[in-house]
Structures are given as structure tokens and as C-alpha cells.
């Protein structure tokens, strides 16, 4: 364990590999994500000992074992809560949460939305493979309706969550999406998340080649079905940008043919809009509805950070009352003496 985590000396991807043998199924999308994350960590230039990965339970949640940083593989669904306690008491650390679609949106849904609402300084990576991998393939809250799985032999009957819709609806100050195999873009998005103060939510479309193979082929394989969102730019996509996004007068988003409607009527993406309505409208463009998927940063706004506000109140009270004095505290206000 080389001590060069002290910040001196540039770290490389290799420095973030732990000594643990990686144990995902051959071909699992998690491998690609792991490599990208390790690369991004090296770029960030944050000493390893100041980085912590907290996860719940699931295949995705094995992630921390493979990172040469501090880490906790906790219990199912609770990582955002555990990470919150760590982040607010240790502002000097960079805390990442790695979770799956079941871990984050099934059992852990409440902790996720509360962490986002509070805007705790956490980077939350949701590996969405639309299935429960670790427990061998039951459908998940993000599985499209009708998905056949061990627990739904006739197809699932519930409408799936839209992870970005949930996040934006829960006041997320940063919400983005990328793809396991789109290494360059994923790295870009992760860097943006790292740069954001407050909670950053990143959905990563991840292929589970064992229990839900090909769920995202349409975007993983066809670049033409990816809509790269870029702040300040009109939203165009397709082989040579022949298609684009327009906002209807009722606030919903639609896919248009640029030739027909003209560039000027296209949406110019604004990540920083104070209102999340735009990010929400964009999140509604889904593979199973319009056959294409926007990726990139949907929303990135500055809001007071929970950790800072908590620290601020402590400083405030210290300023008002002076540092706590134990004996004064024990005395209280109303005493009497027995001689």
C-alpha cells in the first residue's frame, strides 16, 4: 500500500485498483464503469485517502471493494443515509455512493430522494440495468412494463420509475445520465458531478448480460439514438444532427426533424435553469416512448449545501455563545447549594 495517497505525485488509474479480484460476470457492464471511474479519480487529483465509496447491496454495490480508496459495502438501500452521516461530519472527504436500480429505487428510494432534497455533498452513481442482478434476475422498479423475469413469468405489471424524473422531482441540484460503454462521455459526466457542490445524481445505463442482456442496445450500439445534451447549445442529434428537440407550448418535449421545423425552433439546452421543469420535460424522452435517449447533464444548479449550512449553524452558535463550556452546561440555569 504505497503511501503516495498524500497528494504528492500524480496518481494514475492503476493507483485506484485495489488488491481484490474483480468478481462480476464476464461481459458485465460494470467492468467498463469501474475502469472509467478509476480513470476519473486519477484525473481529479484528490488523494486516495480523502475519497470514500459507499454502496448498498447488489452487483453494482460490490464496487467499493475494487477501489483503492476508503469504502463501505453497507446494507441494501441505505448507502445514501450512511454516506450522509459521513459527508456532513467530514467535509474534507469526497464521498461517492454506488448503487443499483433496486438498491436505489426499490428498498432505498426514500433515502435517495431525501439525500437529493437536502443537497448533501454526495456523488450518487446509479447503475441502471433494469433488473435485480445479484438475486438472479427479478424485474426491478426501472424494468419496462411487461418484462418477463423470475418473479414475473407473465411479464411485470407496474409502470417503471424514470430515475431522472424521480431525482428532479426530488429537487436534485445535479442530474445527469450516461452509458457504461460510452467511456469518454461517462468520464465527462463524472467530472461534472465531481465539480458540483451538493448532491449529484448520475444514472448510468448498464448492461447486465446475464439477466437482462441488451436492454439498452438501442442507445449503446446506435450512437444515432443518443441525444448528447450540451448546455447553451440547440439540441440536435442523429447521424448528422438532422433531428432535434423542441418544447411544446404545454411545456412537454418532442422530437422534431430539424429540416422541417428549422434550427431556430429547437430547444437551446439550459442546465442552469432555476426551475427544474425543463430537466423534467427532457427526462420524459425515453427509449420506450420515443426510441431515443438524452444523455449528459440535465440539470446543474447551485443551491445551499446541507453540509455547509450545518457547519454554518455551528459556527454561528459558537460566534453567539462562544465555544461550549462543559461545566457551564452542566450547571444549567437554576441551581441551589447544600452545605
Amino acid at each position, binding site marked *: *500500500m504505497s503511501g503516495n495517497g498524500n497528494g504528492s505525485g500524480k496518481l494514475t488509474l492503476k493507483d485506484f485498483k485495489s488488491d*481484490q479480484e474483480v468478481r462480476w460476470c464476464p461481459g458485465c457492464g460494470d467492468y467498463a464503469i469501474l475502469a472509467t471511474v478509476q480513470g476519473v479519480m486519477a484525473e481529479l487529483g484528490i488523494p486516495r485517502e480523502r475519497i470514500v465509496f459507499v454502496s448498498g447491496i447488489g452487483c453494482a454495490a460490490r464496487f467499493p471493494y475494487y477501489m483503492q480508496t476508503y469504502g*463501505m*459495502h453497507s446494507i441494501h438501500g*441505505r448507502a445514501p*443515509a450512511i454516506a450522509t452521516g*459521513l459527508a456532513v461530519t467530514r467535509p474534507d472527504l469526497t464521498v461517492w455512493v454506488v448503487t443499483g436500480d433496486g438498491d436505489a429505487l426499490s428498498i432505498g428510494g426514500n433515502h435517495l430522494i431525501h439525500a437529493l432534497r437536502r443537497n448533501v455533498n454526495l456523488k450518487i452513481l446509479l447503475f441502471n440495468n433494469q433488473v435485480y442482478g445479484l438475486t438472479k434476475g427479478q424485474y426491478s422498479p426501472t424494468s419496462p412494463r411487461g418484462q418477463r423475469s423470475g418473479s414475473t413469468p407473465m411479464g411485470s405489471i407496474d409502470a417503471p420509475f424514470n430515475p431522472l424524473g424521480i431525482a428532479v422531482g426530488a429537487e436534485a441540484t445535479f442530474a445527469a445520465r450516461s452509458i457504461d460503454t460510452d467511456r469518454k462521455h461517462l468520464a465527462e459526466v463524472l467530472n461534472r458531478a465531481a465539480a458540483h457542490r451538493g448532491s449529484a445524481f448520475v444514472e448510468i445505463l448498464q448492461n447486465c448480460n446475464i439477466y437482462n442482456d441488451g436492454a439498452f442496445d438501442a442507445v449503446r450500439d446506435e450512437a444515432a439514438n443518443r441525444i448528447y445534451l450540451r448546455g447553451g447549445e440547440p439540441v440536435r442529434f442523429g447521424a448528422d444532427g438532422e433531428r432535434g428537440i423542441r418544447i411544446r407550448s404545454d411545456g412537454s418535449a418532442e422530437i422534431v426533424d430539424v429540416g422541417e421545423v428549422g434550427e431556430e425552433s429547437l430547444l437551446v439546452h439550459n442546465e442552469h435553469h432555476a426551475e427544474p421543469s425543463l430537466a423534467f420535460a427532457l427526462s420524459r424522452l425515453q427509449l420506450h416512448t420515443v426510441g431515443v435517449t438524452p444523455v449528459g447533464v440535465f440539470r446543474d444548479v447551485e443551491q445551499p449545501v446541507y453540509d455547509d449550512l450545518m457547519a454554518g449553524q*455551528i459556527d454561528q452558535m459558537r460566534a453567539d455563545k462562544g465555544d461550549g463550556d*462543559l461545566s457551564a452546561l452542566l450547571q444549567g440555569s437554576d441551581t441551589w447549594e447544600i452545605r
Partner: protein
Amino acid sequence: MAKAVEQLERVVIRFAGDSGDGMQLTGARFTSETAALGNDLSTLPDFPAEIRAPAGSLPGVSGFQIHFADHDILTPGDQPDVLVAMNPAALKTNLRDLPVGGTLIVNRDAFSEKNLQKAGYASNPLEGEALADYKVHAIQLTTMTVEALKGIEGVTPREAERSKNFFALGLMSWLYGRPIEPTLTFIQEKFSKRPELVEANTRAFNAGHAYGETSEDFVVQYEVRPAKLAPGVYRQITGNEALSLGLVAASVQSKLPLFLGAYPITPASSILEQLARYKHFGVRTFQAEDEIAAAGAALGASFGGALGVCTSAGPGVVLKAETIGLAAMVELPLLVIDVQRAGPSTGMPTKPEQADLLMIMFGRNAESPVPVLATSTPGNCFDMAIEACRIALKYRTPVYLLSDAYLANGSEPWLIPDPASLPDLSVEFATAPNSGGEFMPYLRDPETLARAWAVPGTPGLEHRIGGLEKEDVTGNVSYDPDNHDAMVRLRAQKIANIAADIPPLEVDDPDGDAKLLVLGWGGTYGPIAGGVRRIRRRGLKAAQAHLHYLNPFPRNFGEVLGAYDRVLIPEMNLGQLLKLVRAEFLVDAVGFNRVTGRPLRTADIEHAIEVLLQ
């Protein structure tokens, strides 16, 4: 001309009225006066069930009982000697506790048709024979108060009327010769923003006091002399206050920032509310979305090197079980405080019980032993909070601390400790590799079996922990059969070893020849000690011991049990400590169990002992 003064050793007064009548304030003030006078005392508020009921209704009655004496006392008293009833509902719900011959002071003005009906009285009990068995003083409290406040600028009739509790306080203060200055000062400060109310309440208070002095209705005044308490500076304290102070003290003594994860729940909420006011001690209070998150966040804080604590009550504590199991597996400190209330399920949220013991001991999947401590008196909550933190930090383990609704809200005089006398709780974090250049997170201190604790931020010691079974020493995930068996036993041994690090069980057996041991734990200390005391006054013999450590048991516990022919274990449950004692020591102990949502009664304990001695 002064009236005759009669000496009393002890008095129990209960103030009862509508939630709106300010009985808690009245009781608190009377308590301060009594403390200032140097009596020993014990108080118990009796809040209405959580929801505020309509004014004048039975569920809306709020009570406050104080027991004070010229000697040290142990409980707020089984039954009042004096009942102050501000309305018919208060009379209806409390009269059954007043013994025949007891003194009854009522606010005659409140006995209107409407109020009588709300209280379910067919006829006015103040008329006729209904109260013949008591010494009744039916006083026009409201009328006289309003009278006394005539002509004060800016006091609404409603406000004038509401000052009647100070009239009652003044009267009682006179009747028991309490010092009046503290209350006059209190009124000054409390209402400083509204001088007219200072004037109003002062007048009401003095009027009540004067009424006592002058009215024919009261022929004697009572005196209760100061008690001989250990010298020193005292304050009043409730159990939840003491817990809060203890946690802050533990933080100071360990030099670790205190992190409290909590989700509001009766009767634990006030700990969260009080600690939220101690931010200048670096205390971080986190009101979580639920109890699971509260425990999780506290564990996360511990992982980062803070003193992680969470507070709740039964229905919330059960939700933390999985997280505590994780804490036991990753071997990090975590203090979980359970302020017990009556159950099962939602039960009776404001009422005390001590039926969470077995849940705390065993309520986690698989073998996950956790130390369990319990508090015995409001003041003791301070010491046990510190002790629980000491064990959690030293042994890197979750620890449960049990209190209850009675200790939480009950108050007693507390000899304020000198901070210098508190234990040093400082922790040694790992800062360097501990095994040939490598860091082994599960390498243990041979004596305590505590694992090495390296907090994030420590260069070179990066490592991962988690809920899967760990390989001994390295802490890597392991499915090896023998390793698992060994780790299960190691975790158990670590907790068992704590017995060597806690005080032996003290037995109170004056002549050392009692045949019966009365064994208790938790909030039943007062009534048990009281019952034993009464038995001894009657020349009978009984030894008493009270457990503050339920897991592991004190190392001399077996010996103590062996020394007595009979063991009586009174509990506010169906026999939970009883089960543990029988299982571990095969001692045929017997239980005395009352599960009424009320503290055990001294008289009942006395009787239970008596029966066994026959």
C-alpha cells in the same frame, strides 16, 4: 396573625387540570421553590395521550406530581396526599388515586354545567356527599384571580383568567411555606417582554398566597424541613436532560464530535430537541427521514471518526436492527438509546414500560451480540450515557442504552458533577500500517479484541469494510467455514470480555444475612428501593441489587445470585430479565410483573417482598 404550623416529613402533591391550565408550569415552579428550600424531591409529569383533546374533556387532563421530604426519597410517590383539581375532568380522572382523608383543592368556578357534562358528571360532585371522604377546599380560583387583576392595562379577560394557575401556586406556596422569591423572579424574566403580564401574574401569585394566610378555610400551615443531602451544588434534572448532557460530556471527554441521528418519537424527541441547542459544542443533530436513516447516518459518522449516536423508542428502535447488525459486523462504535414506552406496536406512547430488553438483546438476524446498558434514575442517565459511549468507543461496537418514559420526564435533584472528575474517553486511531507494512483492519488488540480503527483521510491505510463475513485479520470477504465459525465466536468473545471492564454488581444487604435478594434493572430502581426500605423498617430483611449492565452481566453476578435462597425480580414487563437470569444461571428466580404503563408502586413491591418472606 400567623397560623399554626404543623411539621411533616413528606408530602405528595398532584396538580391536575386541563392542558390549557398550565399545570406543568405550576408544578415546575413549585418544584423549584421546593428545591431552593432544600427538600429532597422527585417529580413526575403525566401528560395527556399524544393528541391534544378538546378543552375540559377527560383525555385533555394534564397532571404533575411532586413528592418532597425532609429525607432522601426515591419516587414521585404512589398516591397524592393533596390533589389540586382545576376542573371537573381533572377531578374525575385523578380522584381515584387520592386516599380517603386526603386533601382536595378544587377550582369551584370551573364546575359549570358544560364542564361537568364534558367530564361525564351527572351532578356536581361539589354538592352532596360524593366527596365526603376527603378534606375539600372548593375555592373560586378564577373569580378571585380576575378580581385581583382588575385594572391592569392591556391584559385581556382571557389572559387574566389564565393567571389562575399562579393564584393556585401562590396558595400552595403559602400552605407549605415555600420561598416566594424564586417565583417572583421567574415571573419577571419569563414575561419581561410584556410588563402587564408580569404585573398580572405577580398579583395572582401574591393574591393566592394572601388568600392562604387570611382565609378561614385553611387553619394550619405545613412545614417540611430541608433534607440532609450530600453537600454540593444541585440542579433539577430529568432523564432526557441528563442523557443529553451525558452525550455532550462524552463528546468532550473523547474529543470526538457528537453526531446525533434521530427521527422524532415520543418519549425520545426531547433529546434531539435539546442537543440541537448545543451546536456550540460542535454537536451535529440530523433529523433523518426515518429511524433507519438515523442509525445509518450515525454509523456513517462513526465510520468517519465521530461519536455516532441515535435516539428513539421501541417502534423506531426495531427499525434500526439491520443497521446495528452491520455495525456489529464492521465493528464500529454506535450508541443506540431506547427510551422505552408501553407497547406492543404503537401501544401507549406516553407511558413507561421496560419490555424492550429482549428485543434489544436478540432482535437482529444471526449471532450479533451487542452490549446493553440501562439507566436507573434521571440523574443516573448522565453517567450511563458516558459509560455507554466509553464501551462503544473502546470496543468498536454498537451499544444499546435503555431508558424509559418515566425516567425521561421525571425529575430529581442532581448533584452537579465536576467535569474534571469525568473519565478520559480518548480513542487511538490507526495512523500507520500495523502488520509488516500492510494495514489489517481486523487485526485486534489482544486484550480488548477491538479491531484497528483507521478513519478515512488517513494516508496509506485505505481499506474497505462491509456486511459480508470477514476474514480474520485482513477483513477481506470470506466464505471459509472455519473462519466463519471463528469470527462468530470472536465477536461474541469481544462482548463477553467487557465484563472484566465494568464494575461488579453492588448488593445492599445491611446485615449481610438476608435470605431474599430483590433484583431490578432500569427505571424501577426508586419503587424497588422504596419497597425494600419499608420492609426493613418493619424489621424484615431483604437485600437489594440493581443492574446497570444487562449484557454482559457483571462478573460477580452469578456469585451474588448464589448467595441468596430466593430472588425476586420486579419488572414492568412479563419477566424479561427473569428469563435471562434463569437461562444463564439456572436460578429459580421469581418475577413481580406489572405492565400498566405506570411506574411500579412502592406499596406493591413491599407487598410482593412480604409474600415471599412468608
